[in-house]
C-alpha cells in the first residue's frame, strides 16, 4: 500500500525537509520490518516520496501526483504555506493528510475534514511558552521584568510575535521592542546593538536555524549577557548540532519547542540510530517518525485502504505509541489535543527538559550565571 511522504527536500527549506523525510522513512522501514500492516495481511508500506521544492505550488503538484498514484494517505508538509496548499489539494480527493509540523493554526481551523495535525499549533505553543516563562521567573524570585523579541518575519515568527506581544504585558513583562528580520540575514550586528542599548532582562528569539546561530554568535561576540535567552521555536536553541558546534554560545539557552519524551525508551533508541547514521536528532525526525506510526495505527484499525475509513480511524485515534510527550492522541477538528511543546535548556553541553515537571530531566538555571 502506498503512502505519500511529502517534504521540501530542495530549495530554501531543504535541510528540514530532508530531516523530515529521514524520520518518516525510518518509521516506514520499522513498520515493514515488524510485519507491515497486520490487519491487511501484513501489507508493506510503500512510500511515495515527494519534493515540495520549498514552494506551495510544488506541494500542490506532488499531492496531485500522489493522489493519481493511488496513495491512501499523505504525511508531511513541514512549512505552513506548503501544508496549507497540500492539505487543500488532498481535501479535493478526501485523501487523509497528517501534518507533521506546520504550526499555523488556520491549517486545522478552516474546516478540512481530511487534515490532522499531530503536533501543536501557534496558539498552544505561545500559551505554553508564556506560562512556563512565568513559572521559571517566579521560581527564581521574579528577577526579569523586561523582554525583547527578535523574530523572523514570515508566518511562523511573525505569528508567534503577535501572540507574545498581546499576552506578555498581562503576565507582568514589559516588551521593550519587537524586532522582525527577514530570512536570510547577512548579519545580526544591528540587532545586537539595539539589544545592547536597551539591555532587556530576557531575549526571546523566534527564527530559523541559520539566523539563530548568527544571532547567538553575535550576542557572544558583543558580550551581551541578559538574565536569560528564552526562545520560542528557536531554530537552533534546542538543536544538538548547535550545541555541539558552538557550546559557548549555546550555554544556558532555553527553548520552548517540539521535543521528544525523554523518558520514552523508543525515542532514545531512535536517537541513537539517527546519530549512528551521522545525522542529528532534530524535531523534524521524531515528529515525522511519530506521525507515520500514528498513521500506521489508523491503518490497522481501519483494516482497509479506503480513504474514508482511514480518515475515520484517524479521527477516533487514541494512539499512544509515539515518541512525543503528548499522551494518548485525541483529535478534535483535526487538532491533536494533547500536543504541546516542552521547555528545554542547554546544560553541560547537553539539552535537558526543564518543564513540564513530569518530563523534566533537570531544573532550570535562571538567571544565567555570570560568565
Amino acid at each position, binding site marked *: 500500500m502506498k503512502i505519500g511522504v511529502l517534504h521540501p527536500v530542495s530549495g530554501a527549506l531543504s535541510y528540514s525537509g530532508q530531516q523530515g523525510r529521514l524520520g518518516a522513512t525510518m518509521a516506514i522501514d520499522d513498520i515493514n520490518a515488524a510485519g507491515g500492516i497486520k490487519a491487511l495481511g501484513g501489507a508493506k508500506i510503500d512510500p511515495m516520496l515527494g519534493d515540495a521544492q520549498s514552494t506551495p505550488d510544488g506541494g500542490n503538484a506532488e499531492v496531485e501526483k500522489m493522489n493519481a498514484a493511488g496513495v491512501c494517505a499523505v504525511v508531511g508538509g513541514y512549512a505552513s504555506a506548503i501544508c496549507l496548499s497540500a492539505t487543500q489539494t488532498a481535501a479535493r480527493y478526501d485523501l487523509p493528510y497528517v501534518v507533521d509540523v506546520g504550526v499555523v493554526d488556520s491549517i486545522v481551523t478552516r474546516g478540512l475534514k481530511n487534515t490532522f495535525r499531530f503536533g501543536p499549533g501557534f496558539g498552544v505553543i505561545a500559551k505554553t511558552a508564556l506560562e512556563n516563562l512565568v513559572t521559571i521567573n517566579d521560581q527564581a524570585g521574579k528577577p526579569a521584568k523586561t523582554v525583547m523579541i527578535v523574530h523572523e*518575519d*514570515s508566518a511562523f515568527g511573525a*505569528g508567534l510575535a503577535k501572540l507574545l506581544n498581546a499576552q506578555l504585558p498581562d503576565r507582568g513583562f514589559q516588551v521593550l521592542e519587537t524586532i522582525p528580520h527577514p530570512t536570510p540575514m547577512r548579519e545580526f550586528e544591528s540587532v545586537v546593538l539595539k539589544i545592547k542599548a536597551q539591555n532587556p532582562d530576557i531575549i526571546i528569539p523566534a527564527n530559523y536555524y541559520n539566523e539563530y546561530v548568527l544571532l547567538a554568535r553575535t550576542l557572544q561576540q558583543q558580550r551581551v549577557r541578559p538574565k536569560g535567552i528564552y526562545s520560542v521555536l528557536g531554530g537552533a536553541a534546542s538543536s544538538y548540532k548547535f550545541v555541539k558546534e558552538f557550546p559557548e554560545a549555546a550555554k544556558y539557552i532555553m527553548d520552548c519547542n517540539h521535543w521528544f519524551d525523554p523518558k520514552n525508551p523508543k525515542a532514545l533508541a531512535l536517537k541513537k540510530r539517527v546519530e549512528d547514521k551521522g545525522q542529528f536528532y532534530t524535531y523534524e525526525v521524531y515528529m515525522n517518525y511519530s506521525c507515520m506510526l500514528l498513521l500506521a495505527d489508523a491503518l490497522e484499525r481501519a483494516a482497509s485502504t479506503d480513504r474514508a475509513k482511514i480518515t475515520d480511524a484517524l479521527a477516533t485515534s487514541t494512539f499512544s505509541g509515539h515518541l512525543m510527550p503528548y499522551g494518548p492522541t485525541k483529535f478534535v477538528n483535526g487538532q491533536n489535543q494533547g500536543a504541546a511543546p516542552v521547555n528545554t535548556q542547554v546544560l553541560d553541553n547537553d539539552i535537558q527538559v526543564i518543564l513540564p515537571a513530569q518530563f523534566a530531566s533537570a531544573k532550570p538555571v535562571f538567571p544565567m550565571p555570570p560568565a
Partner: protein
Amino acid sequence: MKTYLSIIVVVALLAAVPMVTTSNVVLNFLVTALLIALAGQGWNLLGGYGGQYSFGHAAFFGTAAYATAILQVRYGLNAWVGSFIGMAAGALVGAVIGALTFRSGLRGSYFSLVTLAFAEVLRIIASVAPITGAGVGTLIPLDLHARAFQFQSRTPFYFIALALVAVSLTVIRAIENSRFGAYLVAVRENEDAASALGVDAFSVKLCAITISAAITAAAGCFYAQYFLFIDAGIAYGPWISIDALLAPIVGGAGTVFGPLLGALAIKTLGETTKLIAADAPGLDLMFYGLLLVGIVGLAPRGIAGLSRAISRPRRSSISTPDGSRG
C-alpha cells in the same frame, strides 16, 4: 481572421485536453504551465517586443494577488470583482513604475535592476504591513462555489486559465499588427532613431508596461484563487519574475507563442528531470540547469526561433548590433 487562425487552432487543441484525459495531474500541470505562460506573455510584450527587460514582474503579479485576496478577506468583495480590481491595481503599479523609470531615461540593465528593486520594496512592505497580514500572509477562506471563483474540480480552473491565455495571445497578436506594435518594435531596435522619426518613445513604452503589467496581474489574480494563500515571498518573490522572463526567452522572445511554448517546455523539463533523478534531492534541478544551458546553446533564438530556422534555413538574422544595453 487569418492572422488569428493559429491562435484558434492552438487554443482549440488545448481545450480538447480534458476530453482526452481526466487526469488531474495533467490538468494541474497544464494549469501551472498556463499560469506561467500568462505571466510570461505580460513580460513578452515589454521585454520581447519592447526590448525593456524587466526583472521585477513580481511587482504586478503580487499586487494583483494581494488586491484580490485582501478585497475578499477584509472587505467581503466578490472574488470575480476582486480579480478585475486586482488586474487594474497591477496595471496601475506598472504605469507608475513605467512613468518614473522611463521619464528618467533608464534603459537596459539599469531598467532591469530598478524594476527588481521596486519588486523588492513591495515585498518588504508586504512583509510588514498589517493589511497584507504582514508575515503571516493572507488566506482566502474555502468556499467551493463558482461565484466565489473556487471550484471543486480542476477542469473549470483549467478552462479559465486557458481563456485568459487565449485572450492574452489575441491581444498580443492584435498589438503585433497594430501601429502601436510597430512603434514598440522600432523603439526596441533603436530608440533614438525611432524618436527621430517622430515616435513618442516615452508614451509607447509607458503604454507597453501598463498592458504588460495588466497581463501578468491576471496571472496573479488567478494564482490567488487557485492556491488561496499568499505571503510576501510568494506574491513578490523573485521566483515569479524569473519564471515570467524565462518562459518567453526559452520559447522565443518577441513572438506570440513564445511564452506558451516556453512555459510548456520548462515545466515539461522540470517534470522530466524529476522522473530521471528519482528521489535524490537536488539532482533533478541540477539536470534542469544543465539542460537549460544546453538548450540555449542549441537554440539561441528560442524554440520559436529554432522552428523558424528549420523551416527557413539561413535567413540572415541580424541581431541588435549594440550588445551593450547599458
